[in-house]
């Protein structure tokens, strides 16, 4: 059947409370103390606010929309996502999200938001503009990040001052549309980020597929975790695959290339020249040969990531690896075997249900 038409669901199933609290504690751990869900009853709010939603679901009871009165009591302090209209003491929500309370501070964390860059984050970005001395990179934030010419490695690992010649040839490094993996080096006051690619791990991306996940919040999307980049074995005859989960919700899945070992072997280079040899291919936009089994497994892994997001699960190393194993198993049990990589619609729901149990 090439097309499936389903009756509409009553509403999007909310992420399970377990996922929410997980994401919360990780996100707010650096503020010292996790956010506690705000209890409306303790704020003395009129009860009709609660009665519009099923009372047993903690997500719904804390859900506010822009303009919702959270509390008129002035003993509370207002935090992010709230405001106090002039000449009142009413703490009012300015976002659609979930209210959280930390001691006397009330804040609203949005259901879905753009990425807020932080120094040290690993991000995947797409070059949108090329300027005289820098690139402007889309990293799913409210502003474009900038990648200065001085913050990249020159081919061959040469260390020198950037000259006019480099400025003229800026497009040979990165051009419009190119994908880069980079790290946030510095933040401006207004939230704009400056990136750098001064590491062998960073640079232009090739040999793979890109997925953009929607913004953060609501328990789904990429969460900051210990490992954002890893290599995994492909099942069903596929080769090794590299996965880069950008903290900004951009994901890159590609074929793993054993460049270091190969080049070292060919040229009999010492470990000291490693940087020189490795960075040779950093600005290449030519794909290597990829066999169809690896391509299939890359597509399968991409579908796992999209299925996780569509069904409101967080995306991290553990979930992706478990999801991939589960997806392979599901495909083997199916009629067409390993060839079947489709995970949309109901298959995606099945997959996430299996992961939650």
């Amino acid at each position, binding site marked *: *059947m*090439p*097309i*499936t*038409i*389903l*009756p*509409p*669901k009553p509403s999007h199933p909310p992420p399970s409370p377990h996922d929410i609290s997980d994401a919360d504690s990780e996100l707010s751990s650096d503020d010292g103390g996790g956010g506690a869900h705000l209890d409306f009853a303790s704020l003395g709010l009129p009860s009709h606010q609660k009665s519009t939603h099923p009372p047993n679901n903690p997500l719904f009871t804390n859900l506010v929309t822009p303009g919702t009165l959270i509390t008129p009591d002035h003993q509370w302090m207002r935090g992010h996502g709230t405001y106090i209209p002039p000449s009142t003491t009413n703490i009012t929500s300015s976002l659609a999200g979930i209210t959280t309370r930390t001691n006397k501070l009330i804040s609203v964390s949005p259901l879905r938001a753009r990425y807020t860059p932080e120094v040290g984050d690993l991000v995947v970005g*797409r070059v949108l503009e090329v300027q005289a001395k820098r690139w402007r990179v*889309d990293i799913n934030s409210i502003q474009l990040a900038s990648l200065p010419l001085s913050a990249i490695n*020159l*081919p*061959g690992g*040469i260390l020198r001052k950037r000259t006019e*010649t*480099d400025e003229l*040839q800026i497009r*040979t490094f990165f051009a*419009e*549309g*190119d*994908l880069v993996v980079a790290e946030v080096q510095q933040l401006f006051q207004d939230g704009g980020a400056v990136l750098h690619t001064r590491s062998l791990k960073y640079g*232009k*991306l*090739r*040999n*793979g*597929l*890109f997925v953009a996940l*929607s913004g953060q919040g609501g328990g789904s999307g990429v969460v900051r975790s210990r490992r954002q980049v890893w290599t995994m074995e492909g099942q069903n005859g596929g080769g090794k695959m590299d996965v880069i989960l950008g903290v900004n919700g951009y994901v890159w899945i590609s074929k793993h290339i054993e460049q270091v070992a190969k080049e070292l072997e060919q040229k009999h280079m010492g470990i000291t020249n490693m940087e*020189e040899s490795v960075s*040779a*291919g950093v*600005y*290449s*936009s*030519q*794909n*290597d*040969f*990829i066999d*169809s089994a690896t*391509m*299939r497994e890359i*597509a*399968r892994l*991409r*579908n796992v990531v*999209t299925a996780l997001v*569509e069904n409101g699960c967080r995306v991290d190393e553990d979930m992706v690896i478990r999801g991939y194993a589960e997806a392979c198993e599901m495909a083997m049990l199916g009629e067409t075997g390993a*060839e*079947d*990589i*489709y*995970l*949309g*619609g*109901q298959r*995606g729901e099945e997959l996430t249900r299996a992961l939650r149990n």
Partner: protein
Amino acid sequence: MASSTNVHLSPAELSYLHTSLSLNPPIRPDGRSPTQYRPLSAETGILPGTNGSARICFADGTEAIVGVKAEVEKTRRRWDDDTIFGENQNQEEGEEQDEGEEQGSSDWVELTVEIPGYRDDDSGTVFLGQMLCEALLADGGFVRRLRINRRFHWKVYLDILLISPPLSYPLPLLSLTTHLALLATRLPKLKSEGDEDPFFDDDWAAAPYLYARNPTTKRVTERPPVTLLVMAVGGNVIFDPSKEELAVADVVLAVSVGDDASSREGRMDVDGRSNNSGRNLKLLSIRTVDPPSRLTPPGVANAANSAYGHAQVVSTGANQKMPEARQTESEAVEGVWKPPRGGAKAVVMGALVQKVLVRGGVADEVLDALEGVDTS
């Protein structure tokens, strides 16, 4: 017309997509089979103020709603049309004349498309509207339904709204939603007779559907057209392409098909059974859609890349003078993206249309699936 104005994909991604879609069988980035549509959820009758409405959502959040409003309008007579003066004499023997008279005019339908972020008069939006309108008006069957009598007709306003930003080329979504909205459209029951001023029954429950149902089977006998988006890449034909897939397409076609009910009825009489699998599809219109792949930047082969390998950044004079010119017309290299050049081959176009129209093929299945949606 470019099906998506700014595709931002890197040459390496484009090359990867092109290679994986050219495999046999193709590997689509979202894992669908070549003929598979994205799963969607549909409902009708969502807008109480309209004569008929429908809403369709994709899983990625793309959502469209269509509302159909109808009003009574006086039929403008053509300058050479003397039936009004002749009608009193001819009324009794007017059978034959009615046959010829039962024609509508294309301005009885007004179709507007709204896409967030684009102006009403944006060429893309206008082109989308024209394609959808063209399919409706192609065989004159739709406007014929709008006729009330010789002096009055229904004027139908079709408002097609895409609610989400266009994540992919929205033509299939808008066409499917329009199809469902028209199926759910009901017009008030006519109480007056002949050519007198129309007078309607105010009981909405008695209102008949614009596309009449078979009273026994409750099935729609004739159906509005649907427009399918088909693309070819390498030797493969792919239905309902996503944005990334369109970005590497060699040819993109929008094919409108209708259900040729009249011939089906005839066949049913002969066969004595109503078979679903073999409906007679009628080709209504074809449009080529300019694939965005032609506007994509070409990739640079490693051999020509001054930033590749141990080459010094300050390179030889010839390279430095015209690096761009050297890149654009290079030979095809494995793994380097090269945008398609030249027009579509007639053989490919023929194969695409054939694939749509084949009995029991995709168009058939799409119409079957749409039939399953509750439009009452």
